[in-house]
């Protein structure tokens, strides 16, 4: 019923690790076994099987519900929040710098708008025109 072997545990890598990480782990673990010679054949076979599982067969680890997951949470060893390795959004350099002049221009435009507003109010007065 339960999978007897877990390829990620055999390779010593977290569940869902990438193909690259699996290859690195395989190289690291198989090197001493090869040096040890014949006595390690079974372990080497296990490692080879585990590598093929991770690199060829397990296409979508998230949807694999037959394997025990270590860690159960892929983010168990990482953290929320910003920092060096999870940088905050960049800030786009400011292009329009003369705020003081722009505010004065806005004030003038608002004042002009107000004068126009008053003039239109006045234009609606009856009998404004006298010859």
């Amino acid at each position: 019923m339960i999978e007897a072997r877990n390829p990620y545990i055999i390779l010593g890598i977290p569940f869902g690790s990438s193909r690259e990480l699996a290859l690195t782990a395989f190289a690291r673990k198989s090197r001493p076994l090869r040096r040890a010679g014949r006595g390690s054949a079974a372990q080497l076979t296990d490692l080879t099987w585990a590598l093929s599982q991770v690199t060829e067969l397990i296409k979508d680890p998230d949807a694999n519900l037959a394997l025990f997951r270590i860690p159960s949470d892929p983010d168990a060893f990482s953290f929320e929040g910003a920092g060096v390795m999870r940088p905050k959004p960049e800030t786009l350099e400011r292009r329009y710098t003369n705020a003081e002049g722009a505010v004065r221009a806005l004030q003038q435009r608002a004042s002009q708008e107000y004068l126009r507003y008053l003039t239109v109010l006045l234009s609606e007065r009856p009998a404004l025109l006298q010859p």
Partner: protein
Amino acid sequence: MSSFGEPGRWCRSCGASAPQTRANCERCGVDLAPPDSADYGTGGRVGHIIHVGKLVLKRPAIVLAETDEAVTLVSKGDERTQMATAEFDQQQKVVVPGPEVTSGAGRLWKAAHATAGGAFKANFSVEHVDQVAWEFGRRSLAAIRASILDRMALGADCDISYLPVTASEMAWYKAYSMASAGKTCEMLEFLRQLPPKGYDARCELITARAADLVADPALASGAVDVLRGVASANMTAQALIAAFDANATQPPKNLLTGYAEDVARKIQVSPSDLIAVADALANGRRLPALAQSPLQYSRAFDAYLAALETSDLSDATEAIVSLPLECIDELVDIGALTRLPDDFSPWVDDVTSYVKSRVSPGTVDEDTLRAAGFTAELARRAFMRADRPMLDTLPAADEGVKHYKGLLDLQDDLGGGTVPADLRPTVAHAVTVARAIAAEGTSASTVVPDEVLGDPTLWPLLQKAAETGNLRPANPANPAAGEFVSWAELCQLQRKLFEGSWSDVIIAGNELANRTQYEAFADEALNMAAFASLQLGRIDDGMKLIDRALDGQFTTGLVANAAVLASSRGSQAAIPYLLRIFNSNEPLHIRSAAARRAVELWMDDPLAPGYPTATKELVRHVLASTVDDQLFVDFCKVSAYNDEDWFATAAVKGANTAQRFAAEYFSALAKVRSDNHKYGFDDFCGVVAKAFKMRDKPDWVEAERARILAMLDEGLHTKFGDAPGFALGVQVLIREDALEPYERIWMGCQAAAHIAMVIDKDDGELAVAVENTLVHDGLALYKRTREQYEPRQRDWLEHDVARSVYILAAHVWSASGRARDAMADVYNSLNYRKRSDPVNFAQYTGNQRGILAEFDREYASRCRRLISALRSLPLDEDETTHVSSFQDTVNAWDAEAKDLRRAL
């Protein structure tokens, strides 16, 4: 003195202002009287018209003169009559069509012009009325001035050669007339003809056309031009220039507030509100309430000032539109503008992209970032998703791109020792410190400084060292110290697990779970301990540990592990956990995987009894949910084979057309399989035919098609007469044209033979129509398509068909023999009747001819057709002998029939 206010007494002739007390202009000596028609009558009755006379003699009469007692009227030619003033005033006045006029002379001219032009019907002398009008119109300068205005209104000649007014005065009246008529452009044209100074009343004319000036910058510019000459001494002119000059500067406070006060006085409202706004604008302060006012820039100015104080401007999109970009940039910098609606784009595209990238750099889409040239953020996004190809497409020389390429190198080599080049200095420093700790910590006890403790995103660089247990916080009081210690212990635990130290993992995992205040770390520690328990065969211990981890918050991964662990107790134990995943908010493919896993476990479980209730309930639940097509089909199939009674009547609909058809198909299959339904294979084949005829068959239909054809192949190739159910199904598939030609040919013949054999047992006979459809149409099809098949296919097909047709021919031959015997009895009885009833001899003879024809048509010719077909098919020796025997029999029937016909 510069001031606001109504224009006082002034000279129409030269435009100079004058004291109220003077009668003549100080500058030019001309009478200061304004246009006025009141000095040539007492009651303003001159020029008014009433009807005089009765019935058919009723006609218009116009007033030519008036006194206090009577008016002088003319109704015909130049004959004058008198009417008492009191009587006149009681008469209804006649309205003459045409423009509005104000003076008596104007009314006379208007009546004369309308009558002369035919617009008004009257019998008085137009010339006489016109002459009287000139007399009135020239009676004084004020009357002349009023007359000029009326003649202008009437579009009549105003030639000044005989009128004592100046060109500038005439220009003034024309400007006034144009203003009255709403012709702003023409008004400005005549105002330009005035001397630059004087005629201060021009301000009122221009004010009256304010709406046009607001709407048309060219008109506004023209107005400013004609105001400049009078502005030095006229604050109204200054205010109008400030209002309409495109190059105006901020108006002085006294101008703003003074104009507001003057307007308030003239339109008779409380001045305080208008002055308060003017005062705030002049002093650059927050404005009083501007509810419902159309002042977009004032609102924007006020919103900007408010944002500088405390407010977030993000929701005030109306104000943002009117703000200069400099102000927007400033508000972004101080955090007063933090978001904009997605569809908000009041500026040109690249400016919109720039502003949105400034406001929300972390959330705008990447096209917007590209349009804004924001390479650094594009590089950061590429780094966050480890997208090296995209990083390579960005400008390599960009500092941001270099930094994030270096950071990605670091991400790919967390356990290494190098510090990538091109990192920004602060980051490079932090990484250098972390690398040094990692190197030292792998072999000796090392302290972690606050600058690394405070940034947990750097901790993965220390993982190798943390696994050794050599790291400890330099400052235990650091707020992150506790979390760091738990994290480091979890790293050690994972290492022990990968080394297979199961007992150590169980002990340390429990200890860490009990000690840490961080639930995520505790859950993970229990998860590892549970796995270690499983490895030691302690399933119950493992389940307890993982169930403990599932208390409180947990991840889907933990539930998945619980399912894995529980499945070692049998497929049914895992179902609650898998169902929990299916019902979670995980992506559909993960939820589907959980459901699929539950069924897989059951199928692989040798100890599961039949179709267990838990599995059944899960499958039913999944079919009632929205799932992907493949899972839906698979579970329909599971239900059709294992839960057929329920599925045959269940209201499983599916989420789309494909799923609905799958539900229909497998529901039909379930009905065939269910003992509770009288639903035959031929009924099922109605749905099968629809599946077979689909154009783009999904995989499951192809699989079902192969399964059904294999089943028919095996089912039909049995002893003839033993597969009538399949034969009826084939009949449906052929009727619906759902089979490929090759299948249709052999299956039709097989079906016909099976049905014939069943019928034969009861001395029945296959209907001719069925024989034609199943056999002869198929054989004709084979004749047409024979060359399409490989020799091997042809060989198999012909041999298979030969067996079937041979069996059918035997049936028909046998049935024909029985029919012949029966018909012979009838035929012979007719011979007896011919003798006993000679009167009806001819009728009996006709009946006998009919019997012979019917036998030939229904039996002999049918046998001949089958024999002919068999002659083209491969028969063995015995079959060939039998066919010859059939032929001999048929020949004998033919010869006998021929003799009988001759004898009749």
